[in-house]
């Protein structure tokens, strides 16, 4: 049984271990503080608590290696409780009261939007580890999750390919918030440009936490019966996925008939579902736990040891934090200081190994290069990688498929501007 009392003991023990590790000799000076801003209560705790734990682990490991620039790191955990104004309040507290050198945090776009003015005002660094809708490039934020071109478009390409089943008809199903709206907008434009007829695209939005999927799944089934191979692109948000997949399984929609490719369903979400009826449904990510290479295996082993749970899974946002944290360490070493302002300038161009065997680079637009992997759900809750990009894909801050943003680029190295218009050659418009 994997009751989390163990998990709790595990964290406590890990804390003790980090104290022990702190006896590794450190140079003079107080420890350097790192802020962790993930919800530990409320609706988002379900996803974000894991990221807090992974940061604690990474910081502990770094201290074992002797810290950074000879200084010990210390994690400061804040709980914004899935409450958006509280995110801003906690960010301010971490930066001005605790004097942290960088913050790793946020999950939803709205939480990022909420803390953004604070980071700009107090000039600190936020590492944001989750795939998002793009359309943003800020000096103080480093986006280590996927932009739409690193997840959505390759997934659709795969489904249109021979291996993916040559889908001709598309259901874009999402939760009604900005990430699905934007992703679907981009995908719709992309599909139309690929010659898909408007009648062959069905778009459907549901509220957060939607739990009764009978009608929608039946609709999808009917839409799929028009005689053309149909695929579902799901941007359904975390909580609503379990009932959605349960309904798919119950209504007998098999992946061989209508495959569902999801952008928000990873190992962590599947841990709550019996995946036998879902074998073959897909997910597009930049990392899967099942990827075989020594770095990943070591990471998984360490994570399961850290959480004292041999069945604990890893997922994509965890890898994003792993990359982001290592980039921060390297940037601090390059800049020779913890001063956020200098580290921000040192970060673009920094490379750090990712867990899929490549080396990711921080780009001038503050997004990173990542491989795109398509995985099929296995009956043990893991994914089988069935396709992957040959190289790393650079993240686009601004989508080329949206009217308002196709001329914009983010460049914090030479142009010092997050929304530079390449047509007017001006920053801002």
């Amino acid at each position, binding site marked *: 049984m994997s009751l989390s009392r163990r998990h709790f003991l595990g964290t406590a023990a890990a804390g003790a271990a980090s104290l022990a590790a702190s006896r590794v000799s450190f140079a003079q000076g107080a420890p350097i503080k790192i802020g962790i801003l993930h919800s530990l209560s409320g609706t988002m705790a379900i996803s974000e608590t894991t990221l807090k734990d992974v940061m604690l682990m990474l910081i502990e490991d770094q201290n074992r290696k002797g810290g950074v620039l000879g200084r010990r790191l210390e994690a400061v955990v804040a709980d914004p409780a899935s409450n958006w*104004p*509280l995110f*801003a*309040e906690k960010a301010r507290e971490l930066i*001005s*009261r605790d004097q942290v050198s960088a913050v790793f945090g946020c999950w939803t776009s709205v939480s990022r939007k909420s803390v953004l003015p604070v980071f700009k005002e107090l000039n600190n660094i936020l590492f944001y580890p989750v795939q998002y809708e793009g359309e943003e490039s800020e000096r103080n934020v480093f986006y280590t999750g996927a932009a739409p071109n690193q997840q959505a478009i390759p997934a659709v390409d795969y489904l249109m390919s021979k291996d993916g089943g040559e889908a001709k008809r598309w259901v874009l199903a999402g939760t009604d918030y*900005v990430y699905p709206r934007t992703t679907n907008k981009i995908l719709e434009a992309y599909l139309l440009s690929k010659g898909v007829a408007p009648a062959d695209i069905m778009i459907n939005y549901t509220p957060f936490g939607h739990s009764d999927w009978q009608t929608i799944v039946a609709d999808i089934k009917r839409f799929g019966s028009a005689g053309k191979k149909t695929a579902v692109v799901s941007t359904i948000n975390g909580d609503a996925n379990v009932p959605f997949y349960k309904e798919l399984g119950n209504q007998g929609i098999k992946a061989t008939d209508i495959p569902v490719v999801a952008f928000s369903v990873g190992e962590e979400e599947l841990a709550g579902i019996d995946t036998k009826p879902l074998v073959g449904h897909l997910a597009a990510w930049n990392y899967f736990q099942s990827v075989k290479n020594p770095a990943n295996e070591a990471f998984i082993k360490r994570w399961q040891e850290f959480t004292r749970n041999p069945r604990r899974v890893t997922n994509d946002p965890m890898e994003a934090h792993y990359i982001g944290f290592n980039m921060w360490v390297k940037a601090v070493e390059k800049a020779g200081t913890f001063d956020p302002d200098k580290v921000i300038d040192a970060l673009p161009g920094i490379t750090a190994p990712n867990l899929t065997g490549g080396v990711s680079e921080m780009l001038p637009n503050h997004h990173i290069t990542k491989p795109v992997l398509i995985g099929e759900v296995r009956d043990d809750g893991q994914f089988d990688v069935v396709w992957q990009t040959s190289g790393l894909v650079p993240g686009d801050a601004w989508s080329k498929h949206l009217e308002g943003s196709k001329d914009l680029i983010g460049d914090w190295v030479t142009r010092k501007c997050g929304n530079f218009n390449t047509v007017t050659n001006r920053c801002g418009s």
Partner: protein
Amino acid sequence: MITLRLMRALAGREQVFLALLAALIVLVPVGNLVMPPDSVLHIPTGTVVLLGKYVCYAILAIALDLVWGYCGILSLGHGAFFALGGYAMGMYLMRQIGTRGVYGHPVLPDFMVFLNWKELPVTWWGFDWFGYAMLMVVLVPGVLAFVFGWLAFRSRVTGVYLSIITQALTYALLLAFFRNDMGFGGNNGLTDFKDILGFPVQAQSTRVGLFVLSVATLAATFGLARWLVGSTYGKVLVAIRDAESRTRFLGYRVEHHKLLVFTLSAMLAGIAGALYVPQVGIINPSEFAPTNSIEAVVWVAVGGRGTLVGAALGAVVVNALKTVFTTGALAPYWLFALGGLFVLVTLALPQGILGLLERRRAAKSTAVSPKAAE
């Protein structure tokens, strides 16, 4: 002269409360703007923002106490009025961004450009004018409360039924504002404000200014509410709370009394929301969440229902606890503390914190008085 008479009419705790507000208005700007940052007396900007937020919650709490504490209407939807006021303010602030949005569109806010909207929806017209926006801050919650109240009180929906439908109201608004098609920014809400009446929102002096304005509004709200409950009208409200049917049989138009106080309270909540948004920098549909409204009720109960001052006190105490407990080692356990506090207050302190303070003072004075008699 009038002030003196007014002060005399107020109970001791109310005098203390007003004195405290006056002190805040003076000390906080001095502490933040005048004192050097390394001084012990310096108040960091973060604290000013935090206090400003508490003050807005206190206004909401007083508004709620007015309907619940004095008229017995338990509204589980006051967060909706607060959020509507906040949205009206947020829309004004969005329009002030002008071409400084990421896409540089002169009229449309970023999220509309982003979703390929071509023109400003009707609901947004006029919000670039401060006066109109401020009118909407009170009008939208006021009209909604009036219509809702008129329907509900006229057909004598009372007690838990009323509480549950107010909850349904805020829940429906929550779902509606989450919809991107509504044109209010969906889940991301309104954010990244630049300036208010030409003053940059992020500037220290603007923050202090907003804080002072909030405290002044709190004092005014308190004054209005205090005057109201002290008047004959207020006595009728209490009569309705204690025995609605009897009051009706005595010839009072219960519905009218209820409707007036409910609408007024919603307007006050709207003002609180409007002050809240520029200070926290974001307004999002989650402000409509039913738990937020329930939490507001809890503040009133914790502070002391039917005392006005207690409501404000409760709002500050609960939120301060939240701030303290959500950082550091206690972070995973703060819900235990908060939940435990609610249980404890209802069981041990039915009159709230204020009731406890007063009981202790009363106990002390009875303990002291025999000595004085000697």
